[in-house]
């Protein structure tokens, strides 16, 4: 073994033993630094004859390469170990709670109104609105309830002391039906609208609140009849409850603004103390429940709304939004709708991303 070999082996062993980057650097300087023995050995080549150089150079070059490789490898290993140690030091307790962003919610009434809009848009209905502080002409007279009409008294109306310029009483609308009148006056026939919104009656008990939500539907065209009404409500309820087994029962009734007038019942069963819409009301374990009023728009109403009953006819219906929301989503207390309790709002409310769409189904499952 030459001296060069011996020195090289010693250097490689020292490199392997270096415990830190600093120690490694010392070894680098000792071998490859300006005054390192390899560098000095390389310098001796300059004083040799070409033949001598040819003979000596390969050994020196190879020792240099071996030491340089060993330095690089050791450096990488030391750095990796140091990083590992640093990461170990940086360990944190991930069982600690992370900060959570507050979760918002959409009120069930709004959600159901969006569902209504989506379903009825597919049937070609636009959404119409009107004032909640109404006059008695739009709320009653134009709906064929003149001042002496007994049905006016049945409406438990909230009145303001004020009167309009024409001397009409000002009141809180008792139903969404005045929107029918305003829409017909504004846009004439044909017309297909729903009108959801707040309505008010002076009534308060376990199942009634003085403010609640209704949706009005109105279709006026040339040859719309009771069969279309039945189909429209059936189609709506099937889409709304996402069930094909919806069965409606129409019963004759009386509303001043429709003739013939029809009360709409839907078949349901009771499961786990809850009403579940679906099935025939006369089937075993089933019954009927009233779900809305409807009928063919009374000729007088058409006249009040500026339409010619000989040329236009159609149907109207009214449904309680809070009520169908309760039926679909299982709330049992109407009063809680208007309380603003975050616990209730989070429990029964909807994610902002539950935007009703036809392709995903308008309803949002729990």
């Amino acid at each position, binding site marked *: 073994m030459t001296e060069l070999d011996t020195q090289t082996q010693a250097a490689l062993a020292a490199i392997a033993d270096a415990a830190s980057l600093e120690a490694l650097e010392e070894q680098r300087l000792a071998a490859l630094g300006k005054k390192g023995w390899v560098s000095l050995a390389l310098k001796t080549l300059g004083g040799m004859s070409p033949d001598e150089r040819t003979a000596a150079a390969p050994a020196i070059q190879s020792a240099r390469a071996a030491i340089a490789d060993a330095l690089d490898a050791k450096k990488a290993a030391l750095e990796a170990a140091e990083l590992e140690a640093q990461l170990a030091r940086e360990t944190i307790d991930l069982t600690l709670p992370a900060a959570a962003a507050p979760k*918002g919610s959409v009120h069930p009434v709004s959600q159901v109104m969006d569902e209504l809009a989506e379903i009825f*848009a597919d049937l070609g209905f636009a959404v119409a609105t009107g004032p909640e502080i109404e006059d008695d002409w739009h709320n009653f007279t134009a709906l064929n309830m003149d001042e002496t009409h007994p049905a006016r*008294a049945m409406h438990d109306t909230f009145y303001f002391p004020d009167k309009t310029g024409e001397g009409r009483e000002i009141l809180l609308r008792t139903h969404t039906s005045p929107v029918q009148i305003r829409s017909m006056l504004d846009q004439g026939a044909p017309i297909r609208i729903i009108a959801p919104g707040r309505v008010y009656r002076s009534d308060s008990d376990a199942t009634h609140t003085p403010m609640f939500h209704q949706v009005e539907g109105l279709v006026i065209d040339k040859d719309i009849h009771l069969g279309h009404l039945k189909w429209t409500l059936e189609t709506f309820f099937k889409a709304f409850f996402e069930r094909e087994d919806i069965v409606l029962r129409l019963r004759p009734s*009386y509303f001043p603004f429709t003739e*013939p007038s029809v009360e709409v019942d839907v078949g349901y069963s009771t499961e786990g103390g809850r009403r579940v819409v679906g099935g025939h009301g006369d089937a075993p374990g089933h019954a009927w429940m009233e779900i809305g009023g409807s009928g*063919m728009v009374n000729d007088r109403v058409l006249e009040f709304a500026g339409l010619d009953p000989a040329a236009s006819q159609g149907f109207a219906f009214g449904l309680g939004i809070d009520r169908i929301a309760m039926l679909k989503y299982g709330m049992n207390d109407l009063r809680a709708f208007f309380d603003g309790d975050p616990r209730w709002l989070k429990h029964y*409310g909807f*994610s902002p991303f539950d*935007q009703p769409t036809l392709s995903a189904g308008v309803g949002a499952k729990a």
Partner: protein
Amino acid sequence: MKFALTWLKDYLETDATVAEICDGLNAIGIEVEGVEDPADKLAGFRIAHVLTAARHPDADKLQVLTVDTGDGNPLQVVCGAPNARAGMKGVLGLPGAVVPANGMVLRKSAIRGVESNGMMCSTRELELGEDHDGIIELPDDAPVGTSFADYHGADPVIEVAVTPNRPDCMGVYGIARDLAAKGLGTLKPIAVPAFEAFDPCPVEIRTDDTEGCPAFYGRVIKGVTNGPSPDWLQARLKSAGQRPISLLVDLTNYLMLGFGRPAHVYDLAKLSGAVVARRAKDGEEVLALNEKTYTLDAEMTVIADEVQVHDIAGIMGGEHSGVSESTTDVLLEIAYFDPARIGATGRRLGLSSDARTRFERGVDPEFLDDGLDLLTGLIVELAGGQPSEVVRAGSPPPGGTKILDVNLSEITRRLAGLDIDDVEQVRILESLGFMARTGNDRNVWEVHVPARRHDIEGPADLVEEVVRIHGLDKVASVALPRAEGVARPTATPQQKLERGLRRAAAASGLNEAVTWSFLPEWAAEHFADEGQALWVLANPISEDLKAMRPSLLPGLLMAAKRNANRGAASSRLFEIGRRYFRSNDGLSDEKPTLGIVLAGEKTQRGWQAGKAKPFDAYDAKALALELLEAAGAPVQNLMVMREAGAQFHPGQSATLRLGPKVVLARFGMVHPATLKAFDVDGPIAAVELFLDAIPAKKGAAFARSGFTPPALQAVTRDFAFLVPATLAAGDLVRAVQGADKAVITGVRVFDVFAGAGVPEGHKSIAVEVTLQPGEASFKDAELKALAEKIVAAAAKLGAELRG
């Protein structure tokens, strides 16, 4: 309205069961609200024959009976009734039966050591009467073992809701007529007991108010004997929920409930001189039969004699001339009153009665003479007496005047979508008392409307009659015509705005609430604008729900308070709804609004965050801007100005405006005085977005403008300015921005500092300015020139570059 099945069968010949009748009633629009079948209560009670009766070995007052219930196995029963004896027939309640009077479930038991297998019942125990002196004794021919309910003839009572358009069905006879039309039996003619009239009516009758009382018919009956009504009459009235009073009163009630025809009976001895229908005098009083005194006015029709008012016409009789046990001579009144006036009078007096309900809806104007004869006949038959002839003042509106020319098959098809042949349509109409005949055009029918059907006005009403009897269930669903292709969008910009904002607000962590539109008046006043005339209800349901809200914040504040009282750590509530104002013409001006209330803890105390943090005005600002941006408002151009309103902390609130006038939103901390007024703990931050003020986007298309990122990278430079403490950072930012609008693309405040090293009355604001080069990179000289421009612009506001 309620009536016993027997009563219905007085007028309707039918074999239909109760269930069939109820289905029929529902099908024709007379909604059944309930059926009470006494047979249900008497289940488990049987007719029993007492075979033996012996002393109880251990009790003096008890007997041990053996009773036969018809199955050949006599039962032992212990009984305490004094009248229990061998050989009698009575009613035995078997184990499992429920005693109607007290709900007790009978069981096999031992009474003083003797086995008893049931209970012999008294009349009171079965709720069939008051007698409780002994057990029921049945006649000898009572069939042993038969269900007592069947033997007793339990009479189901049906309760129906009659719609206000059908006063003709506010009597059992009218309901029988509708059921007969439906094919559930045959309507019997009205049976009027025969009587003979003597002499003209001795009392003068007049109507001086032919508008309010177009017809007033009367008759005197002398020598009647008033007293309790016979059982059949009492049973019928009780089934209708009426308490029997006396024969004469009960018979008028029978006429009203059976035939929808109110009438009145006066004690002739209490009347003086002519009996006249007239207007009341203002302030005139009458003590009515409900023992209340009513003060009348000149808009009300009354029946009076020469001395006083005896009847609030068509609503309630007077106490003075009411009949009593001692009444012998009576005057019968049957009249036609104007429905509108009856309604107005009843409303003004706050007085409801069965008579008013019927007159207000309209009684049959052709049933005056017949009604009077029926009442007279019944009185003469049951109370005796000699009737006078009828005296008539005025006349009711003539019947038979309403005639409709209708193409029945065409209109029924058109409105109901049903093909029903003319024969069937005419059969239905005629069974309801209409008359129909064709003229030259065989398709057009001349339909005569019976006078009692005030509700029939046009062809559509006839369709309803035909369809409800024919069966609404026969209407088949027909799809609405559908426009070709995919359904078109229908939402208006306002609707899209509200829908988008609602979900944006919820996505920001807010819970949507729906609160009352009306507030306590003080709460509404607290949030009203200076001089704003609120909408205040004349007849609120309570003081808490009285004035229409001028802001969404009070309702949300009250909700936050309720939540805090329930122990909620925080309330992050929003609501989208209307604020109620008045337009210039005095009508309603309802402004769509989004309100937010942030109460309680913004962040809970935590291992990272430290102490719990409340909401601050910047939380409110962030939400206001975020939601305005979601609403499409040009948030880059908004001005932050004061005047958020007196309900806000004056130094920690602001408005966001588009130009100096158009306020899009207000936000900030709620004023401590407001918190106090609402009795809620602060701090609370609030936001209100005025959705009607947000300008609609114009001319937007689907395609966005082209994407042209700058070719060269932007550079940033920091500037720290010493400014007067009162200078708004926003003003400084705007000034810096204005130094070179083309090049300066961003100015961001990154530090605000006052204290050590900053002179008194000053603060330090540091901004990072983003400079965007155009075609070529900035040269040092250019950057220097820009920095000088920025410093100069800031200096105009008194800002000095810090060294």
